[in-house]
């Protein structure tokens, strides 16, 4: 659906994007990740025809794309990170959407506007001026504007940044429902836990270079060297850890109060084997959960930057501790 070939952008001697080869497939939710200054925004602006590449090509629906291809732009819906002020501020939501519907040449736009506003619960504020809108409302209105021409691809730049938990959930559900209806979604975001929940495939760029482009599962399994299983027991016998270490699939075993912490290979699910071993010794697991590697950890390994620390922090390195993964309870 979108392909880039050797996409490069230079600002003087500085190469912001270097020979980028992206491949966004039809019907997927594609996450575009990278630390600040990685070249994310520059890439997005080139994909949208706002910035001209220094070299390389962009193909949209198999056709070569440039800023002059307004016919291809019609197929893109764009939600920028921040809704700009300017002339929009004094417009009502309805006027704003009618203006864009006219720009897209949409016939009988009233029906479509009503339908989309209803979808995001904004119909009752249709006649309210945008200057009185909250960030969340502006974000939803921005999504409605982007969806007006019924685009094939929806570009979202930091769609949930600055939203409250309810707003995040609403936007997430909306993205998922749009994707279920067949729309391809391209998201750039710093909120990696959210990206992990919704993206089918992700690309990670750093220093203007593509470091990875994989499906979420492939990416996570590629970087999992070991998994951690934690087992809560009523009581842990003294020799249990050493007995567990004798099992061929246990890399390491330790205890933290009444919790066993086991390191196992990522190749398959060993939770049944662990349970069986414990039950044979009349030890009943009260709770057993597996902690797999998170996207955030993979991101840290690839980019060498800790997402919770400033980008230039000297503590950023590939060995950053892995303790923020998602827990899958058995």
């Amino acid at each position, binding site marked *: 659906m979108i392909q880039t070939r050797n996409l490069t952008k230079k600002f003087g001697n500085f190469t912001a994007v270097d020979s980028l080869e992206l491949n966004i497939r039809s019907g997927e939710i594609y996450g575009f990740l990278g630390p600040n200054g990685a070249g994310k925004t520059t890439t997005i602006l080139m994909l949208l025809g706002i910035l001209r590449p220094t070299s390389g090509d962009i193909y949209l629906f198999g056709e070569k794309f440039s*800023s002059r291809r307004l016919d291809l732009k019609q197929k893109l819906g764009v939600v920028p990170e921040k809704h*700009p002020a300017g002339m929009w501020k004094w417009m009502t939501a309805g006027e704003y959407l009618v*203006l864009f519907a006219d720009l897209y040449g949409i016939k009988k736009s009233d029906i479509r506007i009503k339908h989309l506003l209803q979808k995001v619960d904004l119909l009752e504020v249709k006649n309210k001026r945008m200057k009185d809108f909250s960030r969340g409302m502006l974000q939803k209105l921005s999504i409605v504007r982007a969806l007006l021409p019924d685009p094939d691809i929806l570009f979202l730049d930091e769609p949930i940044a600055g939203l409250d938990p309810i707003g995040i959930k609403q936007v997430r559900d909306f993205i998922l429902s749009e994707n279920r209806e067949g729309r391809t979604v391209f998201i750039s975001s710093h909120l990696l836990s959210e990206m992990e929940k919704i993206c089918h495939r992700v690309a990670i760029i750093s220093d203007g270079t593509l470091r990875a482009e994989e499906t979420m599962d492939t990416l996570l399994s590629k970087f999992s060297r070991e998994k951690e299983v934690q087992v809560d027991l009523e009581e842990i016998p003294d020799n249990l850890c050493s007995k567990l270490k004798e099992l061929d699939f246990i890399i390491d075993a330790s205890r933290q109060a009444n919790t066993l912490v086991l390191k196992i290979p990522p190749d398959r699910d060993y939770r049944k084997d662990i349970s069986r071993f414990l039950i044979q010794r009349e030890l009943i697991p009260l709770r057993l959960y597996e902690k797999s590697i998170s996207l955030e950890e993979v991101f840290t390994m690839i980019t060498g930057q800790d997402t919770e620390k400033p980008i230039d922090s000297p503590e950023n390195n590939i060995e950053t501790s892995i303790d923020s993964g998602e827990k899958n309870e058995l």
Partner: protein
Amino acid sequence: MNYKLNAIKTISKRRIFETVISPGFYVATAAGLFLGYYLLSGFLDSVDSGGLNFSLHPVYNQIVEILSGAFGITFVEKLFSEGPFVFVLFVSFIPVFLYHAINTVFKFGFEKNVGALELLMYGPSDGTCFFLSFFIKDVLFTVIYIFTLALFFYLSSVINNLVLGPMFYFSLLIIFFLAVSGYSYGILASVLSGNAATSVALFSGIVVFFVILQIGSFAITGDYVKNLTNVIMWFIKWISPFFYMDIGLSAALYGNFFLFLLSILSILIISAVLLLISHFVLKVKGVRP
């Protein structure tokens, strides 16, 4: 191409609506018409049994003195050759021209700076559609205002038994094309600048520079400075709309219709070149501030 035309039409419609609901537009129009009325009645006060005597009206007296000093007595004679209307027309036009030009320059710079222009670029539009919509709005309101002024002065001439001579009608045309080139300079200033303030400053600088240069070639008496101004003027005059305005008015006064048309054509060419440069600058520079 259809997308572009549709974008220009849609954004122009919005600009026109914004102007119509803006109080500034009515204030500028009222100021222009009031100036016209005041200067016209002042002219009538300057007429006594001996004919035209500007010293009878202190404001006119002052204006004529300043104009003679700045542009020379020939220019003043040209200006009042057919009565007050050409001069009053020029003066009444200034507030509305400045309102539209500065409003466009400011809004363009501001909207580029806050990302509104970029937002339009996400859809089927581009920077050229954006500035052409401003240009069309300004030209449309200029035409409407010129018609209003023509009607106003026509009625004044009928009521006061004054003649509206051919110079007035030629001036109407000159003034329109002068405004068109002014708006084009405004758009170029907005495209070149990063924000609203620098856009307005650059545009004002261009206008003031051309005015000073025009005045300088008449007003400066010192030989060295005059020679220097003349040298600069020789290079700059080709891009100054005031230079062609002067030629056009002289051509109209002496009945040289061909030269008059040539001066208008020159102003049009300047405007077209300025818009073309703006288009290429936007293309290369992008719409981000």
